[in-house]
């Protein structure tokens, strides 16, 4: 415990508080910019049970803000490298890594093992998933998110308090969460610190937790705005809802950058004459008109992302593939039109 003297000295911590930190079980969803800011401070503080879930690998363009990763770690799995780094900082910490993406299939099972869930993702869809899984498993959810020079922080579902759905009601909102929006490392770092601070406050049961309050920080002018909101969900979030929303075999949407980072194989189901041609890291073109005859050339166990011009024919193609027992086939919503807007420079596929 001696290594924690500087915080144990605080009357708000003390030996009792240090024990609470030691016993706490915290899950960080996402090991990108926010995760890299939050994780070292959680580990350093003596939180001895940390889970990290992320299926991504480290790319050069991550290094501008994801400070847990070194140049040598490029191409390696984020969670693996993060664990190594954190163990070097504090060997007492048990780190459980989940080397895949959070989904409706795994969220409830994983969340059950933790006290607090931290959202360090960059996807609004995943945020609704985290929110709903937190409601069902009764866990507080520390939200942080960035738009350029601004950040939002809040704590949802804290002691049955308001949730993400009370703040942003429309879970079908068309937010450009795949669009590449630039960001500075310091902005991400600041929001990550505000999130980590909420985690520590909750564990120690000190201060005023940002429950029912959204903090918006503008790093360009240092303006901080606080917005209060009350519990006002219109939907009942229970396991039945969760299963129908996240587990049924409806067609799952994916955006082009997610598809690339998940190493999905792209299938272009447009006719051969259609333009523009799109260059993706790993793709084939099989027009919908001949897909059924060519289906034997495809591997049922591979993971695919299907696209057409606008997103309609791709849905037909996916139904066809699902009828042939393909398990993991996702739809690029909006087709080529949306891909052109959204392709992320970070992945450098041009």
């Amino acid at each position, binding site marked *: 415990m001696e290594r924690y003297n500087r915080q144990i000295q605080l009357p708000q911590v003390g030996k009792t508080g240090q024990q609470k930190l030691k016993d706490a079980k915290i899950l960080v969803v996402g090991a990108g910019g926010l995760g890299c800011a939050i994780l070292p401070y959680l580990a350093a503080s003596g939180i001895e049970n940390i889970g990290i879930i992320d299926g991504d690998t480290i790319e050069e363009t991550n290094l501008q803000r994801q400070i847990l990763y070194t140049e040598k770690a490029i191409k390696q799995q984020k969670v693996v490298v993060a664990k190594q780094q954190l163990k070097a900082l504090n060997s007492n910490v048990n780190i459980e890594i989940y080397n895949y993406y959070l989904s409706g299939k795994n969220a409830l099972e994983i969340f059950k093992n933790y006290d607090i869930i931290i959202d360090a993702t960059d996807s609004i869809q995943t945020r609704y998933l985290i929110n709903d899984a937190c409601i069902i498993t009764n866990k507080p959810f520390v939200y942080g*998110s960035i738009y350029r020079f601004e950040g939002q922080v809040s704590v949802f579902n804290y002691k049955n308090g308001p949730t993400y759905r009370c*703040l942003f009601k429309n879970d079908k909102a068309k937010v450009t*969460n795949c669009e590449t929006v630039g960001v500075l490392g310091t902005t*991400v770092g600041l929001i990550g610190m505000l999130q980590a601070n909420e985690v520590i406050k909750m564990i120690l049961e000190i201060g005023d937790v940002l429950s029912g309050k959204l903090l918006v920080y*503008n790093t360009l002018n240092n303006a901080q705005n606080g917005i209060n909101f009350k519990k006002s969900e219109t939907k009942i979030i229970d396991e039945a809802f969760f299963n129908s929303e996240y587990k049924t075999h409806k067609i799952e949407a994916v955006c082009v950058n997610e598809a690339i980072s998940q190493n999905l194989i792209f299938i272009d189901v447009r006719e051969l004459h259609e333009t523009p041609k799109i260059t993706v890291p790993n793709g084939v073109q099989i027009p919908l008109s001949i897909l059924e005859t060519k289906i034997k050339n495809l591997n049922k166990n591979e993971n695919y992302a299907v696209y057409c011009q606008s997103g309609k024919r791709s849905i037909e193609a996916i139904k066809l593939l699902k009828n042939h027992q393909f398990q993991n086939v996702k739809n690029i919503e909006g087709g080529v039109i949306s891909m052109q807007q959204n392709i992320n420079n970070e992945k450098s596929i041009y």
Partner: protein
Amino acid sequence: MAVIKYFGAIAEVTNCNEEQIEVSDLKVSDCLELLNEKYNLNTIDVSVALNQNLVDRESTIKLSDNDEIALLPPFAGG
């Protein structure tokens, strides 16, 4: 006059973080309508706060001088 504060992508559409508008006799929903017309914000999903408290977009609360309205889109990045 009321202060309208814009955040995130909304502030990029309006090209300012805040501005004063004349609100005499306006309801919250009318005010949003006005802003939608001025900036064509319709397509973007925003939550709305009046004097630091979240309100319904359809709220019929009448605005007064010195009220503060905030337009908050969800952020995605991380």
